[in-house]
């Protein structure tokens, strides 16, 4: 997304303190993420939900959404820490984003009883998705 990149560039210009606000360096768990499990979560419409909005290098998946940037190359465009923040709470970067916050339970309204107090993904699932996104390098989409 040009606007997101511009925003990131502006943050970098603004110096190291602000640049930290564009990223979440600390892993959420002690266990490194598993890229294969991450790929399965991204493709799963009940768990990751990602392909409802995004397209990505999933030739086997029909009916991918077009509300969001293609995930191909995400690992070249963003660092691990930047991707972590985008998954945990993309609304810290863009309050109007439609991308759900995958690791947030506060500040939500009328959450369904089955989901109350629960995050969309668990900490380990976020690390798994991250490990997968980092394998998506420019030039080898698909």
């Amino acid at each position, binding site marked *: 997304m040009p606007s997101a990149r511009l925003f990131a560039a502006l943050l970098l210009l603004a110096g190291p303190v602000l640049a930290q606000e564009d990223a979440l360096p600390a892993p959420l768990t002690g266990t490194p993420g598993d890229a294969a499990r991450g790929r399965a979560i991204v493709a799963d*419409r009940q768990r990751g*939900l990602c*392909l*409802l*909005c995004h397209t990505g290098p999933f030739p086997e998946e*029909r*009916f*991918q*959404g*077009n*509300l969001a940037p293609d995930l191909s190359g995400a690992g070249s465009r963003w660092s691990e820490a930047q991707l972590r923040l985008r998954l945990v709470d993309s*609304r810290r970067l863009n309050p109007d984003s*439609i991308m*759900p*916050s995958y690791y947030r339970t506060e500040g*939500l*309204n*009328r*959450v*369904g*009883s*089955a*989901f109350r107090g*629960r995050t*969309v993904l668990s900490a380990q699932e976020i690390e798994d998705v991250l490990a997968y996104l980092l394998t998506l390098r420019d030039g080898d989409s698909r």
Partner: protein
Amino acid sequence: MRRALALVLLAPLCLSAGAEERRSGFADMARETQAMQQDDTANPGMLWVLEGEALWNRPAGPAGQSCAGCHGDAAAAMRGVAARYPAWDEAGAAPIDLAGRIAQCRETRQRAPPLARESEDLLALTTYVGHQSRGLPISPPSDPRLAAARERGQALYAERRGQLDLSCAQCHDDQAGRRLAGSTIPQAHPTGYPLYRLEWQTIGSLQRRLRGCMTGVRAEPFSYGSPEYVAIELFLASRAAGLEVETPAVRP
């Protein structure tokens, strides 16, 4: 003239949708689904129209009174009625939607056992009455007593909710026409209800549709018949003023 006036009055309500032309969900459907809706012999919703017609003429309650007994021929008496609902209900001093009005007539005038929301009989009667307005423009009443609930509906439409933290407006104003997985996001105009949804394999009300969008964002839905749903219905009708009633529509 009246339509133009309504559009001017409503313009501030739908700024973001206004940039793009307003279109029924019908326009976004596959050709085959459109053909199914347009051919009465193929449109499964017509079964509920027929069932509704039978109920309209069937006596019920201790006095053995039918809807037709009071209202006469629905083709004349009910033409245009669905196009102006929700409307103000004097008895309840609150807005009421078409299904609510039919259930109320049944209970207080026929004194027949109440019809539950989404029951086959209430859906059939509502579809039958709605069908009498097919082709007419949605024409919300100008009754000022509806204004507060309509505004509440607009606020509910703009409010984020659920674990996914999305508002109706974020999808239906900002993303309409784009694809959420395989579904084209419609502008959310309530033109065809009750309608036959292929995914449900049956007919359903507008409130059932709203409930589906609420649970889709993992929010706690409101209860059927609640003032919140009627308020959203009021807002959606004002946003869709001038678009044609399609009841019974078909949707994927």
